[in-house]
């Protein structure tokens, strides 16, 4: 792969890396005929980010430069720290960098980032490739009942009312209002913590569609990171979400050159302790009793994995993957794998189609040296199912 990023867009790439760095420690890069995808996943597997840069983002784009086999782009994983080191200070980058070249060096197995800066200075970073695989997550974006499009300022303004020590936020969406509350874990001493609640009106947003009243809770750290990202690039934010427990998808795009999806897993909030409406003490005591008995039950994870849905997708996309027999085996292994994973952790996770987890498919052994061996794992695209109007992802037949 080899591509050139013109000066103005380098800042977008820098902001992307900084945002992704708040999500995960490893950066996955994949080059496809018409775009480049950057992805990351956090350690707890509860937050995923994917940013797609279309061909027109680049001034020169050759996705399989150096490839020995045709149609094979680059799939690799690099350390997030290395990526951050390359794009050190985004504010600076805007003023200094004229051009960026990203290319793969097949000999040394390194990804080379070369920044041509003002005054004739050239900065080159030789980044080691940690592994050669791709990573993708399954999530629904378009068939969700609840969609809000908002200028990011509204949300970041609302968030400024929360304490920096708050780490999760609950969003309660109805057709009349959107209420944001800081989420308090049952285990924290209530006498020490401030509870904050903000009510936003639908009229404040660019578009507000709540098909089903929902309450979702997700992590503030990643939410703040994605808000910072949309603020830096001065772009609005779209929220797509459905019922409690299903991941919420946040989208930032500029309509033409890039699109970013941030997917955060959600949990069911503990209702009794969350509401700030003043309650009659008797009622309160009763409610508390109820929640304490339900406490253990609530902690049990929700298995929102819709297995049949996955299978449909798979069969649909099997058509373009080479080795049908092996893929069937792989898929069932994968599914059982993901079910097991969900049971381990109370928080619901996004289904993770991690190519590397596929066991025992002999030809699929990818090693660092064999960058160009075809990745035999299925790399289906979840979004093609719903007839989503997306320019990209024309990999499906």
């Amino acid at each position, binding site marked *: 792969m080899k591509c050139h990023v013109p000066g103005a867009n380098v800042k977008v790439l820098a902001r992307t890396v900084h945002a992704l760095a708040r999500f995960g420690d490893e950066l996955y890069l994949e080059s496809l005929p018409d775009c480049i995808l950057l992805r990351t996943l956090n350690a707890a597997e509860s937050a995923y980010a994917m940013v797609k840069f279309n061909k027109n983002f680049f001034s020169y784009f050759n996705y399989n430069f150096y490839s020995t086999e045709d149609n094979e782009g680059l799939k690799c994983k690099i*350390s997030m*720290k*290395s990526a951050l*080191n*390359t794009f*050190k*200070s985004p504010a*600076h980058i805007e003023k*200094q960098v004229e051009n960026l070249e990203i290319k793969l060096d097949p000999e040394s197995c*390194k990804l080379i980032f070369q920044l041509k800066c003002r*005054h*004739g*200075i*050239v*900065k*080159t*970073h*030789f*980044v*080691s490739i*940690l592994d050669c695989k791709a990573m993708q997550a399954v999530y629904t974006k378009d068939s969700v009942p609840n969609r809000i499009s908002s200028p990011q300022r509204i949300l970041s303004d609302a968030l400024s009312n929360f304490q920096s020590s708050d780490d999760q936020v609950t969003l309660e969406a109805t057709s009349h209002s959107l209420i944001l509350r800081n989420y308090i874990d049952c285990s924290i001493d209530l006498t020490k913590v401030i509870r904050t609640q903000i009510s936003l009106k639908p009229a404040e947003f660019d578009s507000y569609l709540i098909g089903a009243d929902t309450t979702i809770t997700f992590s503030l750290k990643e939410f703040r990171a994605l808000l910072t990202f949309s603020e830096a690039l001065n772009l609005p934010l779209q929220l797509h979400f459905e019922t409690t427990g299903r991941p919420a998808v946040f989208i930032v795009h500029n309509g033409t050159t890039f699109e970013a999806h941030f997917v955060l897993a959600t949990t069911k909030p503990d209702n009794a302790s969350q509401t700030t409406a003043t309650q009659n003490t008797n009622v309160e005591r009763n409610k508390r009793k109820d929640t304490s008995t339900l406490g253990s039950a609530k902690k049990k994870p929700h298995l929102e994995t819709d297995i049949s849905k996955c299978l449909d997708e798979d069969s649909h996309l099997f058509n373009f993957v080479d080795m049908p027999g092996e893929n069937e085996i792989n898929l069932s292994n994968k599914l059982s794998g993901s079910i097991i994973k969900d049971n381990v952790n109370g928080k619901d996770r996004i289904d993770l189609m991690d190519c590397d987890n596929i066991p025992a498919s002999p030809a699929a052994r990818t090693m660092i040296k064999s960058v160009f061996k075809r990745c035999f794992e299925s790399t289906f695209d979840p979004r093609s199912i719903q007839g989503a109007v997306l320019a990209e992802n024309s990999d499906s037949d």
Partner: protein
Amino acid sequence: MDSGKTLCSLLKAIQFQESAVFCALPEGLKLTVEEGKCVQASAYVPSDNFTEYHVRDDVDVMFKISIAVLSECLNIFGSGEESSLKMYYRGEGSPLLLVLQPQSMYNVMTDCEISTQTADSVLELRDEDAEEVAKLVLKAPAFLGLLADIERSCEVFELNLSPEHPNVSIVTYGMQDRSCIDMPKSSDMVQSFSCESPVTLRYQLHHIRSIMKALAISTKVVLRCSSNGLMLLQLKLEKEDQRQMFSEFYIVPLLDD
């Protein structure tokens, strides 16, 4: 002097050790700080920066003083304030006396007595026999920008100088990666460059980084490498009134194992 502000900034720039050797020479004041045997930094204030400057020339006026205390005292009215400064030193064993008066307020003044000690001798790092193999003159803010960009966790700063393109190349090694900054002599950042034959020198990154505070207040930096690897960085600070102050850093290279 009318304003001790610049002097204070200069002292802060070399303040990476507790004490400094204060020398009052006929030409001006020089304060020197040493870290181990690897880095030696000096601040030099030529006498024309002072409105009045009297030094005995029959003896070496030299003593050891806490540079931290000295810069706090110089800054006693805050960095936003220009204060006039008077310094007095009677002789061996006497404290250094400072009198400061802020320009904007008439009813306040501060006097300080800072205790002094006998100075240890200053290590002479310069080797008269080693010749200069390369010289690079750069604009200080530009060089600061480059240094700031280098990943702090790297240990080694490798400098490659050569008459061929690219003339100046700084390489740093991370855990698994390598980063390289190339600066051709044609760049606007380079004011002059001379190098006879290619040379590669290695230094500890954190020693090189110790010049950053001084770079931030200077206008120009001259980098000289001698054949024994010793690097001398000379930084010039030009004030509004055209007077100049200087800081100097000698850095010892890493020896190859």
